[in-house]
């Protein structure tokens, strides 16, 4: 996992340094001396293998360098602050994904082939065929504009970031498409589990319906669902790039888009390293959770 994160950021580092152009070229015209001093300051005048070694040494010390555009801004503390924002958004989105997804999936399987099933499967289909910016537009229309109009102006909450209630719409936007995947998988695997002999035994024994669903059915149905948690977390991280720029949330994804447009390569490589580490960590957590649900799996 560490190897992957390292390999990814190394590829990006070397790739970016092979290419012509940097953050300074498009800037105002500066004298050749000033340019050279600038390049020297960022050690961009050195051959790339040397730069790479310096960069790796820096990363091992937790130092990702200095922003090329905002001079004097260190990348590591900046990204740590933004990662906290992204993590908050991501955690809420994950909560919604799992909560909504499992609920829809379980309801659809219990009430199979009734209107509950059709409603929740339709919701799921809508969810996974809509890009999240479409969902964002609809949600904003519904919540911001809609609520304002319907309550006669009593309720108004602008999109943005900072207030606790402002996390709901972005998190819903981010989580909904993935909730649809979870719902689809949960429904399919629940339908399989419901027909198992041990469920019939439990029911015959007189286990209460709610307990039956939670303890006997859902626990077994969750096993295939957990396998998609890894890709899910990657997806939420990727999706946050778009969602953060839609809602103007000061997180990693927004920083990534801005820094790539301004060609602030140190920040770009930094965000990439962060994402690679986060994805690696998420997959590690999934690997650790998996044997808890399914004792047959041992490492």
């Amino acid at each position: 996992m560490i190897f992957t994160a390292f390999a990814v950021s190394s590829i990006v580092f070397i790739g970016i340094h092979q290419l012509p152009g940097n953050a300074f070229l498009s800037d105002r015209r500066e004298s050749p001396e000033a340019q050279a001093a600038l390049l020297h300051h960022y050690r961009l005048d050195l051959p790339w293998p040397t730069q790479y070694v310096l960069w790796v040494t820096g990363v091992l010390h937790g130092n990702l360098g200095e922003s090329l555009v905002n001079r004097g801004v260190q990348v590591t503390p900046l990204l740590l602050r933004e990662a906290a924002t992204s993590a908050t958004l991501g955690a809420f989105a994950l909560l919604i994904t799992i909560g909504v997804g499992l609920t829809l999936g379980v309801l659809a399987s219990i009430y199979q082939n009734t209107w509950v099933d059709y409603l929740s499967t339709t919701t799921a289909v809508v969810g996974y065929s809509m890009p999240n910016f479409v969902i964002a537009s609809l949600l904003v229309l519904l919540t911001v504009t809609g609520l304002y109009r319907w309550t006669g102006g009593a309720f108004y909450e602008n999109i943005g970031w900072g207030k606790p209630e402002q996390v709901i719409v972005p998190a819903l936007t981010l989580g909904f498409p993935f909730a649809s995947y979870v719902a689809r998988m949960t429904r399919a695997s629940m339908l399989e589990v419901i027909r198992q002999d041990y469920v019939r035994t439990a029911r015959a024994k007189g286990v209460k319906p709610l307990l039956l669903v939670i303890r006997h059915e859902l626990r077994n149905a969750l096993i295939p669902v957990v396998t998609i948690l890894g890709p899910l977390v990657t997806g939420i991280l990727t999706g946050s790039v778009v969602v953060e720029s839609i809602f103007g949330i000061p997180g990693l994804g927004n920083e990534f888009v801005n820094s790539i447009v301004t060609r602030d390569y140190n920040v770009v490589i930094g965000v990439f390293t962060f994402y690679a580490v986060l994805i690696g960590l998420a997959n590690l957590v999934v690997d650790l959770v998996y044997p808890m649900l399914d004792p047959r799996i041992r490492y």
Partner: protein
Amino acid sequence: MIAARPDPIVDEFVLAPHVPVWRDVLRRVSRNRLAVVGAVIALVVVVMGILSNFWTPYPYWQQALGPTFQGPTRAHPLGLDAAGRDILSRVMLGAGISIEIGIGTSLLVSVVGVTLGLLAGYYRGKLDLVISTLINIWYGIPDLLVALIFVVLIGRGLQNIIFAITITRWMDMARLVRGQTLALREREFVEAARASGTRDRQILIGQILPNALGPIIVQATLIIPAAILLEAFLSYLGLGVQPPTPSWGAMAAQGFQALQLAPHIVLAPALALSVTLLAFNWLGDGLRDALDPRMRR
């Protein structure tokens, strides 16, 4: 039929059951209602995209056709955008862009993925190790970020975007084909071909590839919506095809600025995008079910 073909026996072995299989697949797809609906919608989008290159109600770049932000009227069924351009014309052209990117990426991914997958699966050993490691590393990279970096680095032309999306999507196909090849290379007909002295390249193209074609087609179909979606994200973030060429993602992004005032500007491209994605996903799922009878749900 056997008498009519003077080909070697190994060739017969592969070719003989072909025709009924495809006819059977076609029959099963046509019985799947969602897949048929998907195919019809996909066809409409493709036709609309091709048509838009020759004719649109208004030129897609012409501004001030009427009041800006005007809602749907008879002259402009989908209304006008912030610059007074006809949204219907722009959605039509956007269909062409999306389809070009979807199908272009699908073809390129197929070429790259099938080649790498065949090589890795057939020769195994060190080559497989290299390709598999590459696939696994690539899975750890968020696709949108890589595509963004590539688009910024190599430019925003249509080919560049197809190339950038291919770079982020090749490994699905490579992994699939590798798995298929690993299984197929142990089968008797491949062994027979090898024993009769068929060259490696002919075994790969003539024996293994045709037998792995089903899953490859399904995967290639499902790459089309994935690529369209990724391009929409890119252009939503302002890094897709160069304006004024309309792309659904970029149109939605512009419309989002005036969401409260004129929701129709977002809704038209958003709806077009969602319906197209849904159609291709249905078609892909239908093809999968038809090609793999065991997977039927």
